[in-house]
Structure formats: structure tokens, C-alpha cells
């Protein structure tokens, strides 16, 4: 993989510089890289919606969508077409600029964080040394979009939903952040490539299994997925903060939600499951990208599995779980990890 890249890249660069000039080429090259990164991401995001319906359908003993194309493979396209062509209904008393900024603000952070997610040691858009911090910082911006959506729609259901969502996202960001600190402590770096390379002997999930469990539950809650989907709990809040959104503006919210799921699944695979490293050395003939895909895919599958299995938590129970259970446990593990590192070094 890397050899091919090293031979091809200079050729592309010289060709590009000839075409666009030395001044313009770096800009064009960056845009091209962004497109190359986002196209597969958006492809996964659209197709996870189909996967969700198919997998949950199989769990519920029904075929799931199968009309659009064979096995329903064209369904995401049909959905997109439907959402784009539908009328966008704007509530009478909505705060227009905020109303339309909100979905964008939900989707954008979910896409921006991909900049630092590495797919292999070489395949990363921005190999910065504070990658993890960047992810945490940007992904927490998503709460603003939700809060703004609830506020701008001027609807009571939407408002209640957004209040719930904002408090839920903030609470679980905390425990999610704390579960990642021991990983950083073990690695000694915030760079995601370094984090993965440090797991070449043993994956982080082995010494940090309870933290991985907490991490996963926290990200399920943070992305507002079942059983923590209170903000859009259709049983009481209709559709939560999305209630007043229609057509593509609601579609953008869903894209943001699914992009977040994909992102936290990849992050979990990188932080705890050894990223692109094969489970045993013998299997290293399979490319790292495939391993990363399998691991992240498994985590995404668990997301859907949870949705088909569990009832929904109540708001106060969710808060209790976050602050009274996960926070102390993860804090204790930070302490324990520090102690272990200290003892083994001495």
C-alpha cells in the first residue's frame, strides 16, 4: 500500500503542478483529498440507513425494504430523492436563520472530525499531534445544533427534546472523554496513529475492558441512539427537536446522526480495538483498511442491535447512569491506570 502511494504521489504532484501552477495546486490537492475522504464517509452514512432497516428487519422476522433495487440497495437514493423534492415546511414563528443553521451545525462537526481520523499509518488527511483532542472538541459542537433547532422551531415538543438532548450530550461527553484519558495515558500521545501503533502488542481493550464498555454506552447516549434516544422519543415528544423540520432539513439532521455513529464507531475501533492492526500477526496479509472496516462495522452493528432490543431509558435514569455510575467508575480507572503505569515503570 505505502509503496504504491510513494510511487504514485510524486507523479500526481508533478502533473498537478503543471496543470494548476505551483501556487494553486496545494489548494486543489487539499480539496481533492477532502472529497476523496468525504465521499466514502457519506457513502457509509447513506448505506448505514439501509443496513439499519435490513438488520433490524431481520431481527424482527421481517424482510425489511426490498422494493427499490435488488435487496433494496437503491433505497438510500430513493430516500434522498424524496427528501430533496419534498416541500420544506417552515413553522410560522420560527427563527429563520437559526432554524436553518441548526441542521448544518449538526452535520458539519460530524464531517469535520474525519480530518484527523487515520485509516492506515499513511492514510490520514491531517496527521496532527492533538488528533484526539480535536475530535472531542469538534464533536461536542453538535450539541449547539440540537439546542438551536429546539429553540428556533418555537414548538414545545421540539424545545423539550432539545433540552433533553443538550443535557444528555454534555453529560455523556464527560464520561466519554474520561474513558479516553487512560488510553492516552497508556500511549503517551494524542495522535491517533500513535495510539494505534502503541497497540501492536496488545489491544487497549484487554487492559481497559470496563472502560471500553463505558465508552460504547456513552457514545450510544451521546449520539442519541436507542436505548438513550430520549430527545427524539417518539412516544412522548413526537420527534423531539426534529419535530418541526421537514424534507431535507430533517434529512440533514439524520445524516449528522448517522455520520456521528460512523465516527464514534471508527474512533472506538482505533482507540480500543487496535485500529488497522490484525488480531494475530498471521492475518497481516489482509490489508489494514479491511480490519479497521470490520471492527468499526461490528460496533455499528451493535448500535443497531441495541435499538432492536431495548426499551428506552427515562430522563432521570439516564442522568443518574451518566453522573453517578459512569463518571466515578471512569475516574477510578484513570487513577488505577496511573498507578499501574507508575508501578511498572518503577
Amino acid at each position, binding site marked *: 500500500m505505502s509503496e504504491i502511494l510513494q510511487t504514485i504521489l510524486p507523479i500526481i504532484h508533478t502533473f498537478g503542478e503543471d496543470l494548476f501552477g505551483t501556487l494553486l495546486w496545494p489548494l486543489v490537492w487539499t480539496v481533492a483529498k477532502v472529497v476523496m475522504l468525504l465521499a466514502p464517509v457519506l457513502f457509509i452514512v447513506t448505506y448505514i440507513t439501509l443496513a439499519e432497516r435490513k438488520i433490524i428487519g431481520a431481527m424482527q422476522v421481517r424482510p425489511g425494504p426490498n422494493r427499490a433495487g435488488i435487496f433494496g440497495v437503491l433505497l438510500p437514493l430513493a430516500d434522498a430523492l424524496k427528501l430533496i423534492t419534498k416541500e420544506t415546511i417552515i413553522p410560522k414563528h420560527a427563527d429563520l436563520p437559526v432554524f436553518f443553521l441548526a441542521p448544518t451545525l449538526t452535520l458539519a462537526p460530524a464531517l469535520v472530525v474525519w480530518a484527523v481520523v487515520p485509516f492506515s499509518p499513511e492514510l490520514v488527511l491531517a496527521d496532527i499531534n492533538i488528533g484526539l483532542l480535536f475530535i472531542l472538541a469538534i464533536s461536542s459542537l453538535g450539541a449547539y445544533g440540537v439546542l438551536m433547532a429546539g429553540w428556533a422551531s418555537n414548538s414545545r415538543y421540539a424545545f423539550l427534546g432539545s433540552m433533553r438532548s443538550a443535557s444528555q450530550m454534555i453529560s455523556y461527553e464527560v464520561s466519554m472523554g474520561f474513558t479516553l484519558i487512560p488510553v492516552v495515558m497508556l500511549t503517551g500521545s494524542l495522535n491517533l496513529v500513535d495510539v494505534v501503533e502503541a497497540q501492536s502488542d496488545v489491544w487497549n481493550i484487554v487492559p481497559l475492558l470496563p472502560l471500553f464498555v463505558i465508552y460504547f454506552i456513552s457514545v450510544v447516549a451521546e449520539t442519541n441512539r*436507542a*436505548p438513550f434516544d430520549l430527545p427524539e422519543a417518539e*412516544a*412522548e*415528544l413526537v420527534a423531539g427537536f426534529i419535530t418541526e423540520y421537514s424534507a431535507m432539513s430533517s434529512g440533514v439532521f439524520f445524516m449528522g446522526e448517522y455520520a456521528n455513529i460512523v465516527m464514534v464507531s471508527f474512533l472506538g475501533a482505533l482507540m480500543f480495538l487496535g485500529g488497522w492492526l490484525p488480531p494475530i500477526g498471521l492475518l497481516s496479509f489482509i490489508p489494514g483498511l479491511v480490519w479497521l472496516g470490520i471492527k468499526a462495522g461490528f460496533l455499528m452493528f451493535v448500535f443497531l442491535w441495541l435499538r432492536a432490543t431495548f*426499551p*428506552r431509558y427515562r*430522563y*432521570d435514569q439516564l442522568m443518574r447512569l451518566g453522573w453517578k455510575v459512569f463518571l466515578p467508575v471512569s475516574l477510578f480507572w484513570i487513577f488505577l491506570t496511573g498507578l499501574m503505569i507508575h508501578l511498572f515503570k518503577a
Partner: protein
Amino acid sequence: MEEPKEFQNYTINFGPQHPAAHGVLRLLLELDGEVVERADPHIGLLHRGTEKLLEHKTYLQGVPYFDRLDYMSMMSEEHTWVLAVEKLLGIEAPPRAQYIRVIYAELTRILNHLLFLGAHGLDVGAMTMFIYTFREREVVFDLYEEVCGARMHAAYFRPGGVGKDFPEGHAEKIRAFIDDFPSKIDEYEVLLTNNRIWKQRLVDVGVVSEAQALDWGFVGPMLRGSGVAFDLRKAEPYDAYAKIDFDIPVGKNGDSYDRYLVRVEELRQSCRIIQQCLEQMEPGPVKHENFKLSVPKQEDQENKMESLILHFKHFSQGFEVPEGEVYLATESPKGEFGVYIVSKGGSKPYRVKIRPAGYNHLQAAKEMLPGLMLTDVTTIIGSIDIVFGEIDR
């Protein structure tokens, strides 16, 4: 500086257009944050004047109206009507018809409780339950269709018996379903009964003490969930229930979880009842032999003048019912469902009053909801298992 304004509670309209409001329930909820301060259930959006309509229909034409009262337990409602008319007439259905009616009343109980389980699961967020229970409901609907032609609004029970005898092989189909069904109940229970989240959402939510349940006029599973072992099938056995052995499940704490457990156990008991009915049933007539009250046999209609006239009169003028009044209640899946008929002779009732089970349960929502969280509202609504067809009538 501006004076701070007084904080006001939030009032939201929960329904009638709401994904979790069963039917056309409209609840006005006053919220203090997430906590319900005041709940005000509104009724009447599905009022169809059934009681008045019944005054203009013959007793036989009244049967389909009862299907449409509690449209989730169709035949149980018919059961009340036909038993009340039979009591006015002073007749009893032949034994086979009684067994058939009990079988179908219990199958209807299964239908209703399956919908309860599915909808309650969906309200609480366990959406898979809904699909699972509808899979089994489909089987029962197929049985319905086979025995009377309609999948929901059957009009199968008639004063003096049932519309038709079982078609060939029907009893075996019911038996196959009943043999298989307990394993399906186990499946539901694996998903819910010991699920931590399910328990957190249901246990101690909407607690109704024994005294409160009696004060509010609770009936059926709601009453039994609060620990009162009262069941009309045992207390005043009608049709073949006297010859059948079954248990009345009761709850301990009177919370939503107990009511859920009671209903799940009732599903198992219904299987037991149907099993016994199928064993005890013997061939025989399924209609009352007085053909002034029931449809004459097909061959008689073809050969005898009088039978043809009776057939015509049965469906046009209807049968004569002596003067009198009667109140009769049966144990419908939702509780005591009663009907009070006043007859002044003739083929149409003078006045009919229906006593729905859900009405009393809904009024209790006002008392049960304050102090709970908004999320619990859906739990309670699911738990009291209301259908507006019977409440608004």
C-alpha cells in the same frame, strides 16, 4: 433593570394527534420541567352515538355495533350483548355454541393482550415487541377469518348461539396455535420481563393501591394488578366458564409492572382455557333450536314454507323480545364490560346503556399522572390499555 417575569408552567397538548396517544386520547399536561403537575384527559372525540343507534336496530343488527366499541377485543364485546339478549329472552345457547363462544372470547383476549404488549412495548421504546406480537395476532386473525369471514369485526356471536359451526379442521388449527403460543409468550418475556430498562421504566410507576383501585371502579387486569382477585368469569360464570379450571393472576404492588405481569399470565391462562374447551367440546347444534329466535336450517328453508317465512322475518323484522330490563356484564380483556337493556317488547330495545371498562381506567389517569415524569405518561397510558371506541361509544 427589568423585573423578572414570573415563571410559568408549560402546558402541552398530548394528542389527539400524537404517536403515543392511543386512539384519539387528548391529554392536557401541565409540565414543570419534565414533571407532570396536572393532567386532564379529554374524551368524546370518537363519540358515534352507539347507544342511540342501538335503539333503532333489531337485536341481531346490534351485534356488529359491539365489535366496533372496543375494536381491539371484538368478540368479547359481542359476547356481552348476546348474553344479555339471551337473558332477556330467557334462553341458553346449546353447549357446543357455549364452548365456541368461550374459545373465541379467549382468542380475543389473546388478541387484545397481544396488542397491549406490543403497544406498551412501543410506548416504552421496545419496538421489536410490536412486530413480534403482530406476528401472532395475524394467526388469530386468520382463525377469525376462517370461522366467520371477517378478520376484525366478526359479528360471529348471535343471540342463541354463534353464526356457524367450525369449518372442517378448524379445531386442529386452534389447537396448533395454542400449543405453539406459550413458547411465543416465553419469547416476549425474554425480551421484557427481566430486562433492567423495562423494569426501571415500569416498576413503581403508576402505583394504585387496592383501596384506590376499588374506589376508582377499576376492573379487569387493572384491578387484579392491584391485588384484588376478582374475575367475572369466576365470580359469575357465564357460558361454559363454570366447567373450566383456570387461575386468576394477581399483582402485589399495583404498579405498571404488575399489570404487565398479570396480562402476560392471562395469556397463558387463556391458552389453558381454550385447551380445556377443545377437549370438552362435543358435536351438536350451535344455534338455539327455537327457530323463531335463530336462523332456520338451510334445507328447511328450501322445503318448508314456514321456515322460509321465519328466515325472512329473522333478518327483516327481527325476533320479539319480552318486556323487561337486564344488566349483564362479562369479563372482557379490559375488564367488566356490561350492557343494560330496557325492552318494552318488540324487536328493538327501548334503551341501551353500555358500561365500558376503559372509562373508569382513564379517569384515574388524572390521579395517577401528577408527580410523574413526562416519559411516564406513555407508560401509564400503555399500562391502562385504553381504546377510545368503548370509552366514547
